[in-house]
């Protein structure tokens, strides 16, 4: 589902965000990406979401060769990659319902279908009763779950999460992680960047470790 072949990302300043990284994540896998801050976790996720392009090497996601993808095809690629951020990136002037509905609106899904799918996603993350609330009135954990509902509502084959539990206490973090496991069980491929090693070492999943822009460890769970 996600292929990296000798991928290097060099920034204009000459610093390498990622050096010669290769790996393959199979469909339906749930993988943790770990390493110190600045080790290249975010860079790797950005290459998959095409927020940045690789300098060398080939990235393929869900059958698309991102190296050759034209600019106008990027939006369609992003619809197949659900992204979850540490800072949630919700729109504060929209309700929880409208935030979660955005990927469907953007993709031109009909009104009834949108309502059905948004409620299903909110139900899944346990926030159906908050659909009319505004994000600002929610707790950090709840906002993160809105972000997760938005990432999965269009049923993308790949979901990326960048430090999704970064601001949450251990109990809430475990809750979020078990949500991810539930999505994984219905076939979603997940790549989760985190430095909460204590939490993920107790879960039975593949862990990739980056150190100074290189992939130094890749252990099956």
């Amino acid at each position, binding site marked *: *589902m996600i292929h990296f072949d000798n991928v290097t990302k060099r920034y204009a300043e000459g610093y390498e965000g990622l050096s010669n990284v290769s790996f393959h994540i*199979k*469909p*339906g896998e749930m993988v943790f990406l770990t390493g110190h801050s600045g080790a290249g976790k975010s860079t790797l996720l*950005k290459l998959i*979401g095409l*927020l940045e392009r690789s300098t060398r090497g080939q990235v393929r996601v*869900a*059958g*698309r060769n991102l190296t050759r993808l034209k600019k*106008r095809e990027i*939006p*369609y*690629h*992003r*619809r*197949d990659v659900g*992204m979850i951020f540490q800072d949630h*990136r*919700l*729109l504060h*002037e929209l309700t929880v319902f409208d935030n979660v509905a*955005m*990927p469907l*609106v*953007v*993709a*031109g*899904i*009909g*009104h009834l279908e949108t309502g059905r799918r948004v409620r299903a996603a909110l139900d899944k993350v346990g926030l159906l009763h908050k659909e009319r609330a505004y994000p600002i009135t929610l707790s950090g954990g709840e906002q993160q779950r809105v972000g997760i509902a*938005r990432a999965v509502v269009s049923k993308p*084959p790949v979901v990326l999460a960048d430090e999704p539990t970064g601001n949450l206490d251990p109990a809430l973090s475990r809750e979020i992680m078990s949500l991810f496991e539930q999505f994984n069980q219905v*076939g979603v491929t997940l790549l989760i960047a985190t430095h909460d090693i204590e939490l993920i070492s107790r879960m039975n999943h593949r862990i990739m470790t980056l150190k100074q822009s290189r992939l130094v460890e890749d252990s099956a769970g």
Partner: protein
Amino acid sequence: MARNTHRKNRAASQLSTRNYNPAIWLIRHLQVAISSLGRLSRAPFSTLMTTAVIGIALALPAGLHLLVGNLQALSGSWDGAASISLFLEQKVERDQADLLIDQLEKQAGITEVRLISREQALNEFKLLSGFNDALEALEENPLPNVIVVVPDEAHSEPAEAERLVTEIEKLNGVDYAQLDLQWVRRFHGITEIAKRGVLVLGALLGLAVLLIVGNTIRLEIQNRHAEIEITKLIGATNAFIRRPFLYSGLWYGFFGGIIAWVMIVLSLWLLAGPVSQLAGLYNSDFDLSGLNLLTIAGLLCGSAFLGLLGSWIAVGRHLSEIEPT
């Protein structure tokens, strides 16, 4: 493994692509048109400011255009009444002038012949010039008899009228003939220049509207930077992101056009009284003509188009600069 392969196939066949459903596309457009209208109405003061500036910028050339049109209509009504004044020689007396009149009335191309006798002319001159005392001091009337000849419509055209003038100038007793068309022509010339001026002014102020809308939309794009980034992240196409801004520009232009319209109507209403008073002084029943339906439609469509174009330029320049990080 078999399960995985199955999933892979399903995933590959379900990749997102450009999909067109005209009904949904139309509904989305309507929704965006209405929601961008709602967004403008939530900031009524700044919306009013922008549209008022657009309105003033448009009212000026549109109003002047109307004024020039009115002047042309006025000069057009004079065109038809172009008359020729035949100044008779001093020695020609009244009875001889009457003979000339008979002769002229038989001539083709003439609808009306009228005598202004030298006495009549002197009285009128005394009345209007205010040189009453000076004229009293004259021993004899220095004014000649004048015959006013009004050509028919076919002979009112400048070239035809000119030919008529040379023809009747040869008649016995005629000192010289003057075609009262000269100043109508000059007036025509002036209105032509005014028309060009309005065109130039219109182009400049149209450009100003483009800049106003462009700048407003640019600020709006800046204010919604975060929102644009997020919508790009979840797979919005540029067309999708562009749409609300384009509709905003369209609305700005449209409401600016309405304000311009209202301003013109108000100004006409204010001018109507004095103008008909002035026209009355010239024994004319001239009335200012207002905006007709076609002009109003043109004004509103034109202003909406300018708004759309202005936002299109701003969006094209600034939207591509925003990429999510």
